[in-house]
């Protein structure tokens, strides 16, 4: 009971000390809530076409206008985050999760394992992310699982690097030595001794990678390798509606603003956490 009160106060102080983090988290939460409650919020079905009401500007009935097929842009914007968010969240959880475990393992084991892993990472990191993804999607097809897998593989190495650097400093400390002397294996050592001390770094990594992956997944949709029509998706919507940018600008700007709010939010959150906990975002380690 007494442990909760200081925790609440600490959180409160943390938010007060970093308003940018608060703004970021609110933006991300807003996007998540909208994506979850889209069926309740949307005035129309996102895929229902209406040939008579196609390409209309904003009006009382359609606040953001309609697209070429007469679908309500607002409803599609509200639904449009679902695909990107789901895929990005899955890919981020996988990339950060696997990255954290491998990064800790490399720092813990050192020696040949660390060496071999580092060389593999070098190889993966030298390939541009979007190029690798396009190749994978072209070869394996554009299903959601393929994109998740590809995004994970592309972003995992960076996470491993950062986590390894942070964990390296912890592994040398006496309390980890004490755990080794007790004969504890990698798993309890990581969960109990290393993980709580690199949590800050992992949180920043999570927010940062999430923003990159959202951008990547939306870019793929924009290029036609992501969501398939008629799925409402921001990237796809920008691609579909950009030709009538001059006629109904809101149909393009709507998804752009929505996507931007999510990415800006994630970046602000990452920055805020990093600043509040004294983490160097570039080096990844503790300042």
């Amino acid at each position, binding site marked *: 009971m007494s442990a909760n009160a200081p925790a609440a106060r600490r959180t409160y102080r943390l938010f007060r000390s970093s308003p940018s983090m608060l703004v970021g988290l609110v933006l991300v939460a807003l996007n998540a809530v909208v994506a979850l409650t889209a069926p309740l919020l949307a005035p129309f079905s996102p895929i229902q076409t209406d040939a008579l009401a196609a390409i209309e500007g904003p009006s009382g009935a359609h606040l953001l206008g309609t697209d070429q097929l007469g679908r309500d842009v607002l409803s599609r914007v509200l639904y449009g985050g679902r695909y990107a968010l789901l895929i990005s969240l899955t890919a981020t959880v996988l990339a950060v999760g696997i990255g954290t475990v491998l990064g800790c393992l490399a720092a813990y084991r050192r020696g040949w394992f660390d060496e071999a892993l580092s060389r593999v990472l070098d190889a993966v990191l030298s390939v541009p992310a979007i190029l690798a993804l396009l190749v994978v999607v072209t070869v394996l097809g554009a299903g959601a699982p393929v994109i998740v897998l590809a995004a994970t593989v592309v972003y995992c190495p960076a996470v491993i690097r950062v986590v390894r650097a942070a964990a390296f400093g912890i592994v040398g400390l006496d309390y980890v030595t004490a755990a080794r002397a007790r004969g504890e294996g990698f798993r309890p050592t990581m969960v*109990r001794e290393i993980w709580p001390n690199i949590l800050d770094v992992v949180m920043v990594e999570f927010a940062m990678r999430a923003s990159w992956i959202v951008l990547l997944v939306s870019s793929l949709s924009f290029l036609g390798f992501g969501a398939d029509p008629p799925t409402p998706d921001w990237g796809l919507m920008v691609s579909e509606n950009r030709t009538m940018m001059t006629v109904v600008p809101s149909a393009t700007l709507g998804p752009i603003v929505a996507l931007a709010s999510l990415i800006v939010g994630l970046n602000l959150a990452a920055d805020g956490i990093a600043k509040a906990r004294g983490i160097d975002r570039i080096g990844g380690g503790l300042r």
Partner: protein
Amino acid sequence: MTVTVPVSTAELVADVSDLSVAYRSGRRDVPVLRDVSLKIYAGAALAVVGESGCGKSTLAGALVGHLRAGSRVTAGSVRIGGADILTASRPRLLALRRGRVGFVPQNAGHSLTPSMRVGAHVVEVLRTARGMSPATARAEAVELFRQVRLPEPEILVDRYPHQLSGGQQQRVAIAVALAGQPRLLVLDEPTTGLDVVTKAGVLALFDRLRAELGIALVLVSHDLGAVSAVCERIAVMYAGRVVESGDTATTFRQPSHPYTRGLLSSLPRLREPGLPVGLAGTVPSEPEPAGCAFAPRCSFAQESCGRGEAPRLVSVPGRDGASACLRTPEVLAAPAWESAVRARQPRAAQEPLLEVRGLTVDYRRRPDPGSGPTVSDVDLVVRRGEVVALVGESGSGKSTIAWTIAGLRRPTSGEITLLDGTAPADLTREAARRDPTVRRQVQLIFQNAGTALNPRRTAGDAISRPLRLRGLRREAARTARDEALRDVGLEPGHADRLPAQLSGGQQQRVGIARAIAAGPTLVLADEVVSALDVSVQASVLGLLDDLREEHHLGYLFISHDLAVVRGIADRVVVLYLGRVCEEGPVDLVLRPHDAAHPYTRLLVASVLATEPGVGAPAPAADGEPESAPPAAGCAFQRRCPHRLDQVCDRETPPWQDLADGHRIRCHVPVVELRAGPA
């Protein structure tokens, strides 16, 4: 009453008058220094001593016009050569720091920029403060390096800080401070973290600098022994006040303040066997209690001590000194510290617990004809209920041996056997490959309690982990945990605290509780008290001894502090560069004036040079420890005054048995060793 240092004819270098400093915490001012007055004259040396948290470092900073962020002067002034350094304008402050005061911070290694050559640090000061040309500045830097006794100064100026040993870095920092030709040199904890031999060398250097340059020294230290060797005046600080000041020799012989008495009685000494009883309690953190701040810890305290104003510093009748105590006459009448030593009980030989035979650890990746393995051919026996000390300078392989026994490192060759239990257990295996009962029996206690505990886990968590090795869960584990906490003198309530919420001494107690909770038979204690204040050190040593008695434990006690070893150990093994030089009962090995092996002799002489009231000269031997063992022969050959050509550098020295269990490894017969170098 002002602390005056020393004779009035000399130039007054620094004049601190009624200085009070406070920092802001929340909405309150918390005083750090209260009414401190000091006068320092040219050529004098003043020691400022006390436990951590007594305001020593704040005073040292104030002398060079630096206060930590958030703190401010609430009263008084610090006048350096007539100017108040605390209110000086920026250019004036820089001028004062360039020419009048020099500062050597704690941990000199961290104060040097790693990417700058050490010579460049000095040249920088010479060029800005004394306007020298690059060539002259370089020549002067070499000269300064020679002055601080750095070997081969012409070559050393072009080295980077990491290529130097700790003692050498310390000397470079002193050279940097001397470059501005200061009249006053302030040194914050100048000997902390240095080996005994290096420490004696650095102290001898201070003495020479003072004589050669006529500068005033202020040594801020918790190491009472170190300062007594160099400073003729001492100021003892407690809770931000100077509580006693005076002539060092007199103060040490007969302290007039109970706190000084307590500090001195906490100090283990080489000449006095047994553990010091020490001083109970801790320095009060804010706010200041009424009356004397020391009253709660004081055995002389009477009811009037806890009321009214804090006692003022008044001169002690009949001697050159002052004390801030209401009961000075009673303190002076009481016998000095000797009575406060807990005598060491002679212990009967027990069955062996740990046997190490021919242990060799080699870190070298590829064969190197110029050096030998890090640890070579070490034999050790630890019996039940016995404390065996491993002593030597840093780099002597003490920790490597402990880590190998703990299963954190594989030995290159040799046998390590744990003889407790039904069958002897092989300890050359890594910890993870050992049987849980064997893992439980061997426990480590670390030097730095701060890094030995996970900052995100509570004390209770740390103690509970090893209980799993005993198969205890839930309720049984909680009971055992509370019992372990009580064993080390903490409350069960401490279990919920995070390490940051505990004091240094309490953290070390948690570290000990974690080791004891596993139910060990053998405890490997790696420099466990060297990071603690003297009073805390004494109580932790007492605790370790009690636990040994109570649980019938065998200790492998690693330390570079011979006085501590003398207090707690039964037998000593002296290591030099990973080779055993001498071993035997503590009373026979650590003989103050006729140690047998030349290396032990050097160690003992270095310690004696820093022991209060001894005044022995620093040993003449070269103070720089070596880093790599020679490929063949005796490890100590390069520093040994008895060296025999063609013998010591070729053949491994033979064992010479001297007495019951006491033997040395040396080519020279012990009679000749005792007679002194040829």
